[in-house]
C-alpha cells in the first residue's frame, strides 16, 4: 500500500459523496444565482461589496442644465457628500471635539438628528473607488497599491432592488438572492428600522446575534465585524442607526479612534480594531457629516495562517482591502446621479 493510498483512505469523504450532496434543486439554484450576477465582477449579489456612505439628495428630476453640470463637477472630485440638514444651521452647534470613539458617536447622533433619510422608494447612488487584487485566478488577496477600480451602483432605500451599469446598460437585480451579512439574521428595510438606536440596547441585540457564529473569535471582534458588515452593505442605513452602530463600537475597549487620509485623499476619522494581532480593520467616517466613507484592512505584522487549506503568508504592510466612497446621491431612478 503506497502512501497516496494511505492518505486516500483517511479522506473525510469521496468525490462521489460530495457529488451526491450537490444535486437537484440545490445545484440548479446556485448555478442560476451565479449566472444572474454581473460577469464583469462589479458589485453584485455575490459578495457584499457595495459600499454605503454619504448621500446627497438630488432633485427628483435632474433636468436643469446647471444642476447636471453641478452634479458632474461633484462626481469629478473626490469630495464626500454632505448629509442634508433638517434645520437652517449646519453643522449642529453642539458638536464636541472628537477625541474618542465615544465623542465621535455622540457627534454622529447629533448629526443624525438633522439628517433626512431617503424615502423607501428612492435610490442611493454610490461611486466607490477601490484598489485591485492580484493573485489570479482565485479572488482577492493582497491589493496592489496604486491601482484603482471605480464602480457605480444604485440601491433602493427599501433594499428591494439594486442596479449597476454594465456595457452602457442599467441592469436591475432583485435583492431576493442577497443574504444577510454575517451576524445579522436579516437586513430587510423593516428589520433595520426596528433595530434600537440606543447603543446599549443595540449592543445586546448584536451580541445575541453573533453568538451563533461558529469559531472561537472573541465577542468584541465578532461585534466589530458584525457592525462593519452591516455598515458596508447598506447604503441606506438610517442615520440614527449608523450613529448607534458607532456607539456600539465605542463601547468596545479594543476599538480606537484615529485620523487618516483615505484612498481618495479625503481627511477622515477612523475607528479601528487590531484582530488576531496582525490585522488592522479600519472604517472611515466623514468628520463633517459622520457618514461612513470607506474602509481599509492592513496587515501590521507578518502573519502565517494555519489551516488545512494551505498555508497563507501575509506580509506586514499588505493591504487586504481599501476603498472609498467618492460620490453619492439620493435619486429617484437608477441611472441618475
Amino acid at each position, binding site marked *: 500500500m503506497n502512501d497516496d493510498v494511505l492518505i486516500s483512505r483517511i*479522506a473525510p469523504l469521496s*468525490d462521489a459523496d460530495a457529488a451526491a450532496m450537490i444535486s437537484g434543486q440545490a445545484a440548479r*439554484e446556485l448555478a442560476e444565482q451565479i449566472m444572474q*450576477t454581473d460577469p464583469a465582477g462589479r458589485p453584485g449579489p455575490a459578495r457584499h461589496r457595495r459600499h454605503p456612505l454619504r448621500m446627497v439628495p438630488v432633485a427628483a428630476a435632474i433636468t436643469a442644465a446647471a444642476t447636471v453640470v453641478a452634479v458632474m463637477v461633484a462626481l469629478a472630485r473626490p469630495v464626500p457628500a454632505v448629509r442634508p440638514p433638517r434645520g437652517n444651521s449646519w453643522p449642529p452647534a453642539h458638536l464636541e471635539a472628537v477625541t474618542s470613539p465615544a465623542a465621535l458617536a455622540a457627534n454622529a447622533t447629533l448629526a443624525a438628528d438633522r439628517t433626512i433619510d431617503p424615502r423607501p422608494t428612492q435610490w442611493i447612488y454610490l461611486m466607490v473607488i477601490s484598489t485591485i487584487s492580484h493573485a489570479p485566478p*482565485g479572488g482577492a488577496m493582497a491589493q496592489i497599491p496604486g491601482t484603482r477600480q471605480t464602480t457605480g451602483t444604485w440601491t433602493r432605500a427599501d433594499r428591494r432592488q439594486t442596479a449597476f451599469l454594465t456595457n452602457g446598460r442599467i441592469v436591475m437585480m432583485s435583492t431576493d438572492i442577497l443574504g444577510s451579512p454575517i451576524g445579522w439574521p436579516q437586513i430587510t428595510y423593516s428589520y433595520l428600522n426596528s433595530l434600537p438606536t440606543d447603543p446599549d440596547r443595540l449592543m445586546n441585540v448584536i451580541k445575541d446575534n453573533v453568538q451563533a457564529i461558529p469559531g472561537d473569535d472573541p465577542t468584541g471582534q465578532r461585534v466589530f465585524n458584525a457592525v462593519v458588515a452591516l455598515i458596508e452593505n447598506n447604503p441606506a442605513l438610517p442615520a440614527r442607526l449608523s450613529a448607534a452602530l458607532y456607539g456600539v463600537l465605542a463601547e468596545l475597549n479594543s476599538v480606537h479612534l484615529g485620523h487618516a487620509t483615505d484612498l481618495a485623499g479625503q481627511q477622515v476619522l477612523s475607528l479601528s480594531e487590531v484582530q488576531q494581532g496582525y490585522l488592522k480593520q479600519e472604517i472611515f467616517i466623514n468628520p463633517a457629516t459622520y457618514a461612513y466613507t470607506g474602509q481599509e484592512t492592513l496587515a501590521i505584522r507578518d502573519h502565517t495562517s494555519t489551516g*488545512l487549506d494551505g498555508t497563507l503568508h501575509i506580509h506586514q504592510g499588505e493591504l487586504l482591502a481599501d476603498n472609498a466612497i467618492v460620490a453619492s446621491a439620493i435619486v429617484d431612478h437608477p441611472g441618475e446621479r
Partner: protein
Amino acid sequence: MTGDRQRRFEQVYADNRGPVLGYVLRRTRSPDDAADVLAETFLTAWRRLDDIPADAQARLWLYAVARRVLANHHRSERRRTALGAKLRSKLASAGYGHEPHPGLDDVAAAFRNLADGDREILALAGWEGLDAGQIAVVLGCSRNAARIRLHRARRRLAQALYHHGTATLDLLGENA
C-alpha cells in the same frame, strides 16, 4: 454570445461541481464555509470564464481557485455570500464525513500533525488523485518543484509514522 457563455459555464459547473465540493468539504468542517467557498469558486469561474482552460485542466484551475478562496475565507468571514442558500441548508442537514479506515488512526494522526504545506500537497495527491504535474498547476509552481515538495512531504509523513509504531510501518513497508 450570452447564450454561449451560459452554456459554457453550465458545462464547467456540471462537470466539476462534485469534485470541487469534495475538495472543499475535505478541508473544512463547516457546511456554511463549504457552501460559501463553492459559490465563490464558481462565481470566479463565471467571471473569468474565458480564462478557464479546456477539458481536464479546468478542474485544476478550479481547485486552484477553491484553494485560494478557502485561504481568504478565514479572514473575510463577514463577507459571507448569499449564494447557494439551498446548498448551505442541504449540507448542514446532511452531515458528512466518515471515520478513517479501521487501523489507520495512526496515519490520520500523523497526517494531522504535518505542516500545512505538507498536508495540502499530500492531500492533492491522495485525495484528489493528482500527479506532480497537476499539483504544480494547482499550487502555481513548476512541475519539478511540486515533485520535490511531494517527495519531502512523503518523507516527513514516513518519519511521523515511524514514531507511531510498527503496525503503521508494516503498511509503509508495502510502499517499498
